[in-house]
C-alpha cells in the first residue's frame, strides 16, 4: 500500500516535471513580454481609448483585453 502510493507520487512528480520542462522557457518569455505590455498599456488607461458609442468601444475593449494579462 505504502509502496504503491510512493510509486504514484513519483509518477505524478515525473509528469509534472515533464510539463515544466516543456513550458518554462515559453512561460518566461510570456511573462516578460506581458510585463513590458503592462508598462506601455496600463489597464487603467484602457478607458481613455474607448470613446463613446454602442459598438466601437466594445470592439476596442475586447481588443485591449486580449493581450492584457490579468
Amino acid at each position, binding site marked *: 500500500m505504502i509502496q504503491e502510493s510512493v510509486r504514484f507520487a513519483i509518477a505524478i512528480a515525473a509528469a509534472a516535471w515533464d510539463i515544466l520542462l516543456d513550458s518554462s522557457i515559453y512561460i518566461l518569455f510570456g511573462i516578460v513580454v506581458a510585463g513590458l505590455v503592462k508598462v506601455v498599456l496600463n489597464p*487603467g488607461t484602457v*478607458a481613455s481609448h474607448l470613446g463613446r458609442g454602442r459598438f466601437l468601444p466594445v470592439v476596442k475593449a475586447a481588443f485591449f483585453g486580449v493581450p492584457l494579462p490579468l
Partner: protein
Amino acid sequence: MLPAAASLKKQGANRGAVSAFLISTPESGIDSIFITYALLDPIMTIVRPISAFITAVTAGWTENLMHRPNDSGPLQVDRSCPVDNCCDGVDCPDEVHRRHHRPGEKIAAGLRFAVTDVWGDIVGWFAVGLLLAAVITVLIPDDFMARWLGGGITSMLVMLVIGIPLYICASASTPIAAALILKGVSPGAALVFLLAGPATNVTSLTVLVGLLGKRGTLRYLLVLAVCTVAFGLLVDQLYAFLGIVPAAVIGEAAELVPEWLQYTGVAVLLLISVKPLAATFHRKSAGPKGETTFHSGFPIAPAAGPKKGEGSSCPPSCGCGH
C-alpha cells in the same frame, strides 16, 4: 481582472465595453498565448485569442443593444504613471507625461511587473494546474475520455458545466487542457474548457451582478455559453478538415528548445516562484480572505503587491488611489 473592470466602469465605460473587457482579459493574455504555444499547438495558439475576442465583442454588443448605454458624462480616465506612480497625469500634457521615465527605467519596471505582478498572480494557480495535469496524465487510462468527450455537442456542454463554476486562470488551464487532449478529449471540447474556465467562476458572478445587473449577467453567461460551444464545434471541424490528429501535435513546440535551455528555464522559473508561492501559503494560512488580494490590484501599485504601496511616500496628488 474584476477590479480592473470595476475601475473601467467607474471611469465611465459603458456596460457593453465592460462586458467585453471582462471576457477577453481573463480568457486571453500574452502569457497564456506563449504557454499555449508551448503545451498545445499553433492552431490553438491562434484560435484561443480569436475566440476570446469574438465572444467578448458579441457579449458587449448584445449588452449595448438590449440596454442602450447612457453615455452622457465625460470619461474620467485614470492616467497615473504606470512605472512608479510619480504623476497622476491630470494637467500633464501627453508629451511630458510620456517622458517622465527613460526607456531603461520602463524596461526595468516591465521586468519587475513580469516577476511580481504577472507571474506572482499566476504562480499559485499554475502550480495547481500543473499538479492536476500530472494527475490526469498518470491516473486516467489512454483513450478513456475519447468515448465521453471525444467531440460533439455533449462533450462541449460537459466542459461548459465544468468550466463555468470553476476558477482557473488562462495560463494554469493550459497544461490541464493538454493533458485532457492527450487522453482523447477533442480539441474543441478542450477549447471550451480553456475559454469557460477563466471567464467565470462562482465568486465572480456576484461581482458581475453588481457591474452588469441581474439580466446583464444572465445575457453575459448566455452569450458566453453559446459562443464558446460554437467555437468548440468549429475547432473540431477545423482539425478534421486539416486531417490533424491533435494528440500527435500537442507539445511539439517544446522539442524546438534545446535541453540545456529547458533546464535553465525551469531553474529561473523556480527561482522567481519561491517568493510569491511562499507569500501565497502565508496568506492562505493567515485567513481565507487573503485570496482576493491574490490578483493584482488596480491601479498597479509601485513595486510589489498592493500592500507595499500603503506606507510609501505618496504626495496627496499622486492619484494612485491611496
